[in-house]
């Protein structure tokens, strides 16, 4: 952006004054803006006021608010496992599932069960009697052929919540929360 020197200086002064005014309106500076500050165009200050007045107070559902509060308070002190859309965990950690994701993941689990049981039936071997390869046993359970063994069960680690925004939205530069790397694959 380029401005003419005089117009630019004046515009910056107005921008500073508007910023101070707005901080005062939102209560950030309880004492209000400095009396020595640049006088603002009443039309601008009126617009700020009007915008806040017309901003509807969309409040969260009290049931949701209470439920989330309870879940947060029940969370363990150890960092919870966070995902972009929600949080899942065990052992007292947060269980905040987005509705749509919960059903998708349940469907995936059901499909895997069908594959495992169907594979056992197709080979005429009862699943409970089928020999378990040592690697699969070491990996912690039954792993159908073709789905991989330890490699498939190796947890993939994704970065913590600090993500650089791209696509036109600048990435936050400072205190971006850094949670420990988290496993996203459950085996």
């Amino acid at each position, binding site marked *: 952006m380029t401005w003419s020197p005089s117009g630019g200086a004046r515009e*910056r002064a107005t*921008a500073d004054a*508007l*910023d101070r005014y*707005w901080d005062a309106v939102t*209560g*950030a500076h*309880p*004492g*209000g*803006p*400095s*009396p020595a*500050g640049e006088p603002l*165009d*009443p*039309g*601008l*200050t*009126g*617009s*700020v006021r009007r*915008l806040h*007045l*017309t901003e*509807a*107070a*969309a*409040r*969260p559902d009290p049931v*949701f*608010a209470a439920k*989330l*509060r309870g*879940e*947060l*308070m029940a*969370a363990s002190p150890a960092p919870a496992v*966070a*995902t*972009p859309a*929600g*949080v899942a965990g065990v052992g007292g950690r*947060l269980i905040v599932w987005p*509705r749509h994701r919960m059903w998708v993941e349940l469907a995936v689990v059901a499909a895997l069960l069908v594959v495992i049981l169907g594979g056992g039936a197709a080979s005429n071997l009862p699943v409970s009697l089928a020999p378990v390869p040592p690697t699969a046993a070491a990996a912690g359970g039954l792993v159908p052929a073709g789905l991989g063994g330890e490699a498939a069960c190796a947890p993939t680690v994704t970065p913590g*919540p*600090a*993500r650089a*925004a791209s*696509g*036109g*939205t*600048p990435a*936050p*530069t400072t*205190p*971006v*929360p*850094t*949670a420990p790397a988290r496993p996203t694959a459950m085996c």
Partner: protein
Amino acid sequence: MSGGDVERVWTGVVAVASPRSDNEIDRELVARARLEPRAFAPLYDRYLDPIYRYCYRRLGTREAAEDATSAVFARALAALPAYRDGSFRAWLFVIAHNIVIDTHRRRRPEQPLADQYEPVDRDPTPEEAALASDARQSVHDLLAILPADQRRVLELRLAGLTGAEIAHVLGRSVAAVKMLQLRAMTRLRAELGVPVGSGERAHDVVS
């Protein structure tokens, strides 16, 4: 000390500490919450409404706003040990901002972010319909005419952030944020139909 006691104590701190700045109060609450997770409750109570409103304005549905709000606070609680200095409110809104971006990307990954502004419920429940008042729609319509960068600034302003905090969340300079909000308000002033002389001068404001 039981969890309830912790919550009461720290709610009390907030109540009696009004002369102190929000940042000072937040810093104390964060320090306490690091030691005792239940002490996170006052922080949750302080910021539930602004975070929810911000998510609702950006995402447009109650369900999406609730999911995002849940993720914001869960992630904040998990990442609390990583929080150092600066405005806790800005730090929290960085999380909210990133989660909203993630949500938009999952919805329509092929679209540029600048085009992903559609906070309108197509099939609102009666409760949502009540929330979607004329005033909210008015603000929504007003913000929709602004360029994306100006809109982001005003959305955070309406969530109660200061100019410096907005700069932090958006990764812009404070001067850039000031100019964006000035230009946004200059444009909205005409849309709002605010005649000259209907406002007050800056030094008249006492919150």
